[in-house]
C-alpha cells in the first residue's frame, strides 16, 4: 500500500529530514511511527500525502508512483487518504459541521447525507455537541478530535495520523486509538506517528522508529502482560 525506496528528503544543504529510508506497509496494516522530536516523522507522512516531494528515491502509494504523478491527479489521489495533521488544519471560518461537510462536498457525497455522516463521526470522537462551534472556540484536544473526525468521515483507504493523540489525556487517547483500530478493521490501512510510548507499548502492532531521519528499529511491540496464547510460545507471565 505504501512503499518507500531509498527516500531522502533534504530541505536545504544543512537539514536532511530523511536519509535513505526504505520500508513497505501492506494493505490493511496498522503501523506506529515513533522517534524523538525532529526525527522526521511528519516529513515522512507529508511525503505519503505528497504534500512535498522527495529529494531522492521513489514513493509508491496506493499503486501510484508519486514521483510521476501529475498535479492534476493529486486531488483524486488525496481523496483516498484521510490525514490527521499535526496542526489540525481546520478551516477557522467554518463551523465544525461545515468543516466536515466541506470534505463531503469535495468527495461528491450528496448533501442529504452530510448531516448523518458528520453526526456519525462526531459521535465517534465524542463531540456531537460541538456541531456548530467554530474551531477557535474549541480546546486543543477538541480541535484534534474534529481533525480526526474529518479524516475518518469517508472511510479512507489509508488513514494517516500525525500525533493524533498529542493533545489528549490517556483515557481519551485509548478511546481514539480504538477508533483507529475500528477503521483498520473496516479495511483502512493505518499509519500513526506518535511519541506516546504508553500507547505503543501494549498494542502488539508493528512499530517503526526513526532517529535523525533514519529507520533505526523496526519491530512488533510486545505486550507487557502477554495474553494467554503468548505463553504457548514460551513468554512467562509475571
Amino acid at each position: 500500500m505504501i512503499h518507500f525506496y531509498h527516500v531522502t528528503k533534504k530541505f536545504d544543504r544543512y537539514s536532511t529530514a530523511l536519509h535513505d529510508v526504505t520500508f513497505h506497509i501492506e494493505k490493511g496494516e496498522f503501523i506506529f511511527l515513533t522517534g524523538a522530536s525532529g526525527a522526521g516523522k511528519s516529513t515522512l507522512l507529508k511525503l505519503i500525502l505528497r504534500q512535498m516531494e522527495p529529494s531522492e528515491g521513489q514513493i509508491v502509494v496506493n499503486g501510484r508512483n508519486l514521483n510521476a504523478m501529475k498535479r492534476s491527479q493529486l486531488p483524486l489521489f488525496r481523496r483516498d487518504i484521510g490525514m490527521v495533521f499535526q496542526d489540525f488544519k481546520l478551516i477557522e471560518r467554518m463551523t465544525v459541521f461545515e468543516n466536515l461537510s466541506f470534505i463531503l462536498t469535495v468527495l461528491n457525497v450528496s448533501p442529504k447525507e452530510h448531516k448523518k455522516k458528520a453526526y456519525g463521526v462526531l459521535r465517534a470522537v465524542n463531540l456531537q455537541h460541538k456541531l456548530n462551534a467554530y474551531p477557535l472556540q474549541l480546546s486543543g484536544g477538541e480541535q484534534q478530535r474534529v481533525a480526526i473526525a474529518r479524516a475518518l468521515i469517508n472511510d479512507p483507504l489509508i488513514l494517516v495520523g500525525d500525533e493524533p493523540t498529542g493533545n489528549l489525556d490517556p483515557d481519551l487517547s485509548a478511546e481514539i486509538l480504538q477508533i483507529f483500530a475500528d477503521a483498520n478493521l473496516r479495511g483502512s490501512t493505518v499509519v500513526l506517528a506518535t511519541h506516546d510510548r504508553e500507547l505503543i507499548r501494549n498494542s502488539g502492532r508493528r512499530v517503526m522508529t526513526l532517529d535523525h531521519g533514519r529507520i533505526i528499529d523496526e519491530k512488533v511491540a510486545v505486550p507487557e502482560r502477554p495474553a494467554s496464547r503468548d505463553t504457548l510460545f514460551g513468554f512467562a507471565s509475571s
Partner: protein
Amino acid sequence: MAREFSRLEEPKVPSGTLTYFLREALRRIWTSKRSSFVAISMIAMSLFILGTFMLIAENLEHAVAQWQGKSRINVYFETDATPQQIRAAEQILASHGELARRNFVSKNQALDRFRAYFSNVSDLVGQIDENPFPASFEIEVTQTYLQSRAFDAHMNELRRSAGVEQVQFDWEWLAELRRLARIINIVGLIAGVVLAIAAAFTIANVIRLTMMLYREEISIMRLVGATERIIRGPFIVEGMLQGTIGGLAAAALLYAAFSTAKQMIPPTGSLLWGFLFSTFLPWQKVAALVGGGFVAGWVGSWLSVRERDDL
C-alpha cells in the same frame, strides 16, 4: 467497509457543488462588502453610460421609424424670395402631375411650427426681430416616382428656378438621423466596452484579494483532495454575481433616470421631447446590458483564478 477501489474519474458536478459555490460566493461578497461594492459600482457605472447612449440612439431610431414611409420633398426659398419667384416655382410643380400634391408653407407658418415643436426654447425665438425661416413647398410623392428617371430631371429644373435656395428630400435627413443613431450606438459601445474592461479588471483584483485572504484555507482544501474547480468555482461565481448585480443596478438606475428626466422636462408634444423620451430600451437590450455585466464579471474572475499558483 472502506472502499476497495479508488475512484479514477471525477463524477459530474452534483447539485451539491453548485449550491456550495453559490453559498460560498455570497458569503465572500458579504465578508468583503467594501471591495465588492467598489467592483459592483464600477460595473454599474460603465453599463449605465453604455445604456445612456443606447437609450438616446433607441429614441432617435424610434423617431426615424415613425417618419419613414412618408416620402416628402421640401422646396425651400431664399428668405428674400419674391412672390413672383414663388409663383414661377409653383408653375413648375403644377406642370408635373407627380408633384401635384403640394402644400405651401409661408415664412410665418414656418416660424409658428418651429415654436410649436420646440416650445421649450421658443422664448429665445420670440426675441428675434427678423423671421429667419424660409417659405417652402412640401410635396408628397410616391416611391415609384422617386425611382423614375423623370425625378432627377424635375429636381434639377426646380433647383435652377430663381429664388429657390435648396430642394431637400426628407429621406436624406432621415438617413442622417439614422447615421447619427448608429454613431451614438458605436460611441456608446466603445465607451461601454472600455469601461467594462476596466470594471472586469477591478473585479479581477477584488477576487485576487479575496483569494489572498483565503490562502490558508485554499491550501487546506488542496490537501484534503479538493480539485481546482471546487476551489476556484466560488470565486468565479463571486465575479459573475458581482457583474450581474452591477448590470441590474445599471438597468434600474437607467430606468429611474429616464423616468425622472421625462417628468422634469414637461412639454409633451414638442418634437425634441419626442426625440428623447418616446421609449425606454426594449427588454432585449436591457437583458443585453445585464448580460454584459455578467460577462464582465465572469471574465474578471476568470482572469484572477486563471493564474496557476499556490495561492
